[in-house]
């Protein structure tokens, strides 16, 4: 086993810990986003162009996912930190890498489930300590312990996956017939739909659903960038708010 592989695997393990420990509410998750992971691994391996390309492509699949109430539909960092290094190493193209990432993203969300289950014990421990007037235990249970748990739960498997996967994956990829590969590729383009449907399901009051359709077809018919829709959407939302406020004052 070459040191390059080890080094990258170590980085990926640690980085997976960093981006799943949730240390820093909006920060932790962001650090594990495929586009950033792609850039970092690109720098580390000296394959910046490839890293950006694969990371960016992968990002498209995960950028719309939201986690209401602690549901993690798919783990972007698990996908990124396994699929990108393998792709960089084996020279997979961006499309195939996206396909490869899918199962790891799903496996990653399983780790979250485990973490959220075990974490319960720390809350219970904190509660008991407070009962015993051992007040300092609160912060300890809220930080150090769950972080250690996360390290074991996430860093280790990603490290191992990085070491074991390449050969496995390579032979697997060779074994998959072209049509199935294409099928998985199609699935890659379709999967973000789940995230969006979920978000609509979560956010969406029935009476506002037409705004989803409007947003969708503005992009389809006018080829406006997402930011444009965000601007117009903000204006419409503000107008709704202001005019309703005005009405309720009268």
């Amino acid at each position, binding site marked *: 086993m070459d040191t390059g592989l080890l080094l990258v695997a170590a980085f990926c393990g640690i980085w997976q810990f960093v981006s799943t420990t949730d240390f820093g509410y909006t920060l932790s998750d962001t650090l594990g986003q495929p*586009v950033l992971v792609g850039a970092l691994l690109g720098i580390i391996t000296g394959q910046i162009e490839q890293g950006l390309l694969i990371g960016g492509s992968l990002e498209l699949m995960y950028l719309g996912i939201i986690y209401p109430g602690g549901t993690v539909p798919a783990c972007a960092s698990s996908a990124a930190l396994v699929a990108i290094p393998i792709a960089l190493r084996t020279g997979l193209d961006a499309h195939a890498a996206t396909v490869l990432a899918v199962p790891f993203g799903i496996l990653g969300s399983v780790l979250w489930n485990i973490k959220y289950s075990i974490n319960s014990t720390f809350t219970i421990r904190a509660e008991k300590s407070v009962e015993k007037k051992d007040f300092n235990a609160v912060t300890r249970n809220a930080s150090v312990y769950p972080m250690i748990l996360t390290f074991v739960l996430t860093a280790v498997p990603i490290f191992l996956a990085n070491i074991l996967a390449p050969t496995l994956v390579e032979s697997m990829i060779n074994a998959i017939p072209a049509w199935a590969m294409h099928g998985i590729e199609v699935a890659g383009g379709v999967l973000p739909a789940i995230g969006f449907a979920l978000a609509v399901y979560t956010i969406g009051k029935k009476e506002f659903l037409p705004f989803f359709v409007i947003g969708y077809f503005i992009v*389809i*018919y006018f080829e406006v960038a997402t930011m444009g829709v965000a601007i117009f959407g903000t204006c419409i939302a503000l107008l709704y708010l202001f005019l309703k406020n005005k009405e309720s004052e009268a």
Partner: protein
Amino acid sequence: MAENTNERKITNKDIFQAYNKWYWLCEVSHCYDRLQSLSFCASQQNALRKLYPNDDDYQEALQRHLQFFNTEGTIGSVIHGITLSLEEEKSMNPDDISGEMIIALKTGLMGPIAGIGDTLIWGTLKPICLALATTMALSNNLIGAFFVLLFPLAGYFIGLYMCKLGYSLGRNAIGKLIQSGLMNRIIDACSILGLMMMGALSASYVSLTTTAGFKLENSDPILLQNILDGIMPGLLPFALIAGIYFYMKKKGTKYGGILLGIIIASIVLAFFDIV
């Protein structure tokens, strides 16, 4: 407000500290049955110690904040601010404010604010920053990829602002806000924005076309996709999302099952050369 300032025990530094503990630990100890109760408690700890020198009061206060809690952490830190102001008041006039009242307010606010925050912060701000960075990265711009950091940066400061706001508004303002129906209108407005964003993101990032077609004698082959595009472009992805949405409406949000279903369906359709 004015008459109380001379009695203020909570300093700006306390608020800043409380917010930081919240920002950094918020989800670290997240668990299925209690979600953010532990991190909420931890974030208030230092301030509570200051307010309740008596160990029994302090203990009671900590227990109070170990109750179930969950909200969106950025916008939601307004609740931390309010709680601080309430606890401060309670520590001075213990009879005026009951612990139940504080709990009620927290749990009353956490739901609607989670809706607002999930929509604005995670459903709008985050994908915008990510899309920006991704577009740049895909055009081979290394710096661009680091633009993702705009999101945590903005998130941190929005949260800080909300926390301070909550403290200075206190419970009265919030009470009025809810009564006046303003909260509902804000949620509605966020819903509008969020749904438009999801629509736009769906159109940009979900892709599905069919390769199915047939050939009549003496004619060019007819591609189903061309016909669909004639009806309306983007029809298939739209139908797919609508399908998933209505499936969830009926059967609940089984992410895993739907995901598996889609992958299998894709492979099967690919086998029959339909996609």
